[in-house]
């Protein structure tokens, strides 16, 4: 089961760890096709060209394997979809809850991955 976006999807725990191992800069948005999540997916689709050194993925929040994101300590206290997590060399460097604007996302990308 995957999300109806044009992003690359993560559908299993094994794939998640493989991506983090093979890529230096990764942004994963874990959500549903809802009004708070879709704008973030759309921004990520747009940002791919502008940030070719970053890998952008989505993951369906309701997948059992999405526990790898749902249970991250950095997401403790999150109560708003989507959970968006930024990784540098496999480590979480930033995580946000709920809808984020393009400016909020690019601020994090520039700060963490420039």
């Amino acid at each position: 089961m995957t999300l109806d976006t044009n992003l690359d999807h993560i559908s299993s725990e094994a794939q998640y760890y493989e991506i983090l191992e093979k890529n230096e800069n990764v942004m994963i948005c874990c959500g549903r096709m809802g009004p708070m999540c879709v704008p973030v997916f759309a921004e990520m689709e747009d940002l791919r060209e502008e940030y070719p050194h970053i890998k952008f993925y989505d993951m369906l929040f309701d997948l059992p394997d999405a526990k790898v994101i749902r249970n991250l300590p950095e997401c403790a206290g999150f109560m708003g979809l989507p959970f968006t997590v930024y990784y540098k060399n496999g480590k979480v460097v930033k995580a946000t809850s709920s809808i984020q604007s393009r400016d909020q996302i690019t601020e994090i990308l520039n700060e963490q991955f420039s």
Partner: protein
Amino acid sequence: MENKYDVIILGGGPAGLTAGIYLSRSDINTVILNEGITGGQMSLTHKIANYPGSPDVSGYMLSRTMQKQAESFGCKVLSNVKISDYDFMGDEKKIKTERRGTFISKAVIIASGGKSRELKVPGEKEFAGKGISYCATCDGGFFRDKEIIVVGGGNSALEEAVALTQYASKITVVHEFDYFQAHKKAVEEAKNHPKIEFILNSTISAFYGSMSLEKAVVKNLKTGQEYDMKIDGVFIFIGYVPQTKPFKSILSLNKRDEIIVNENMMTNIPGIFAAGDCTAKRYRQITTAVSDGTIAALNVIEYIQNQL
């Protein structure tokens, strides 16, 4: 890059999508430029009980259906568009975007809608997504068996309070007046629900917590007295503010920053029309937005034909 259309619609809520359906079906080359996502405020509604012909449809599904209907007639719908400049003077209307070039048309329909009004109190931004939400459909599931507050007294607040009872163990509706703006049926349903309690003549003056929201400060607006309320979550439904800031120096707005239109949805500038929640009117419903969009589209068709 120039993109030429007959009509540009700004906004993809029910007013904009309806106008898109009517115009495209009349072979008018139309694009919807949407700064957010399709559906606008409608997409945040868990269940819409009063949209004729579609009982209990979700706002999100109704948005998707309207978009598909518009696209089936040839209307182009672009979401997440960032607009940098408007030039409404002259026969050619020009709209510059940040990454998609300039859009040029003979007429424009502004259907920019509104956005959720915030309480603007300390802690509100800090705990957004960490206990504070503006979308029951999106975040209700995080509050299973928890105690929450719903702020507001209109249709959205009371209907979403009832919808949230499927998750929360207790809901306290905090409302600034001692009466409700919601329709009678919504009020009765909320009042009769065993999980819902009310604190009237009150508002929230601050939010506190650590990792997530833990406490809201409730203020009685009659006595000024404030007290802490331990809480797991707060949903805020206190109405909308019109999205008309870019048009302040261009169009005639009223004191609430709503666009003033005549009965044909025409603004003070020839070729510029407006429809839906961004306009000055009394009732803001999906049905009234659909009506506005229809009227605007039909008058735009006449306007374009008169320009030939």
